[in-house]
């Protein structure tokens, strides 16, 4: 029940896992959103969690981030049991997340959003609430994070004026602003355009090797490009866990996830000879392939 995917990079020495989930279960009424899930990530792991809507992916992220509490099971970060630790403290321990439903502070500027996100993690956080000079130190590192996601030019715009794609990037920058050890990404590519997805892949590809990432994503292409290991959830249960290529090639997964069991590639819908184009960008690539 507790498969331990080891990314290709990890050395054979028994390094303690960054994150260890054991028998995690969360029920809402009669619905079991997360059912006896185990997962172990070492530092620098790039792990994806995929599965159909309602499979419990976001609930799993919420349990790890602390916005929800499990009914059973334990969550261990760097050997410390954080199962009942509040969200804010988990963040200060190094867990950061992006949100599927975008969460930006509309009343503040883009820059202030990132300053606030990085604040509890900044070495000079004490006294920054009253000292403008210390606050200014925060704006420098926040500015760097904005450059990372390509929003530096918009630093002084109110966050409410950003487009959907820009808000996604802002949310990502807010997650990165805490220099996390464990980054939880909840559908970071949802609703993004081609260019944005390219930038997203660039940003995530450039993350420091020591950061462990859990990626919940519908776009198989994004998963294939970023993740070295994958867990497939279905109805809250782990269907299969393993290296990305193996898992994506797994017949059961293809059937459950792509809706194709027989045809050549994941990009083809049954019978029509027409590639399934999922919302947004990377599909452009798959479409081109199909035609070429």
């Amino acid at each position, binding site marked *: 029940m507790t498969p331990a995917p080891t990314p290709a990079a990890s050395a054979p020495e028994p390094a303690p896992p960054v994150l260890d989930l054991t028998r995690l279960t969360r029920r*809402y*009424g*009669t*619905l079991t959103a997360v059912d006896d899930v185990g997962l172990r990530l070492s530092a620098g792991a790039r792990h994806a969690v995929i599965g*159909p*809507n*309602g499979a419990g992916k976001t609930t799993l992220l919420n349990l790890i981030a602390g916005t929800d509490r499990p009914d059973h099971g334990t969550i261990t970060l760097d050997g410390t049991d954080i199962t009942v630790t509040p969200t804010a403290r988990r963040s200060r321990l190094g867990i950061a997340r992006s949100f599927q439903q975008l969460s930006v502070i509309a009343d503040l500027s883009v820059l202030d959003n990132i300053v606030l996100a990085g604040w509890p993690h900044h070495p000079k956080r004490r006294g920054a609430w009253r000292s403008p000079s210390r606050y200014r130190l925060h704006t420098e590192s926040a500015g760097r994070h904005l450059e990372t996601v390509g929003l530096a030019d918009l630093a002084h715009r109110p966050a409410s004026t950003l487009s*959907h*794609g820009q808000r996604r990037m802002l949310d990502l920058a807010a997650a990165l602003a805490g220099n996390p050890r464990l980054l939880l990404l909840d559908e970071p590519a*949802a*609703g993004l*355009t*081609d*260019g944005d997805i390219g930038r997203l892949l660039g940003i995530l590809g450039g993350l420091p090797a020591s950061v462990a990432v859990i990626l919940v994503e519908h776009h198989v292409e994004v998963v294939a490009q970023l993740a070295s290991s994958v867990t497939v959830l279905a*109805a809250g249960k782990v269907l299969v866990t393993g290296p990305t290529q193996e898992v994506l090639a797994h017949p059961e997964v293809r*059937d*459950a996830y792509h*809706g*194709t*069991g027989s045809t050549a590639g994941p990009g083809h*819908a049954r019978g*029509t*000879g*027409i*590639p*399934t*184009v*999922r*919302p*947004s*960008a990377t*599909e*452009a690539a798959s*479409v*081109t392939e*199909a*035609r070429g």
Partner: protein
Amino acid sequence: MLELTGLTAGYHGGTVLHSLDLSVPAGTVHAVVGHNGAGKTTLVHTVAGLMRPSAGTVTLDGHEVTGRPAHRIARAGIGLVPQGRRVFAGLTVDEHLRLSYRPPHRGDTTRPSVWTPARVLELLPRLGERRGNRGTDLSGGEQQMLALARALLGSPRVLLLDEPTEGLAPVLVRQVNELVTTLAAEGIAVLLVSPSPAQAVESARALTVLTSGRMTLRMTGEEARADATSLHAALELTATAV
């Protein structure tokens, strides 16, 4: 027959849907395909009366219903199966059926067919087994069936389906597609909205590609089945043009 002319709608200050013309004859499926953010749900909400269009008209069998409150539009015969199902959390399946059952007025013989709870349960037998369960206790597929049942019990002339197969297992996707075909055969005009053309192409008589709220391609189902290239070209454009 559902007809939209010059339909334009948006949220405070921003137009999401730009002057869309579209007609769905009774008994056919018209698919609207587009990426997230292309304005598909805005289209559905505007037709259903959940949003007020800023310009243009919605006509149902020759009667204009533009700008009427949502419940009047529902009574006029437009049934909505919304994205995400949105079944009532606290109501049992039975209560859903009772609440939604609205037989047409006596003398109103223009409805394609009259749906009673018994007939809906015949079509969707799975719901019959879960009659005492609350909406939130149902699986995704069952919730989708319930949302469909809710729309059907108004004996609609037009059915608006907003991403009805989102997140469903393949076997259920097939089932939903078959249902759509069955319902169209009953004489209902179906407006199907989907991010993926696969479902659309299978059953649609006509197909519209929506890009940033504007129609960028209109083709018949046969054309779409025969010529996938231009459809995909249009969708590729969708991906990059935003």
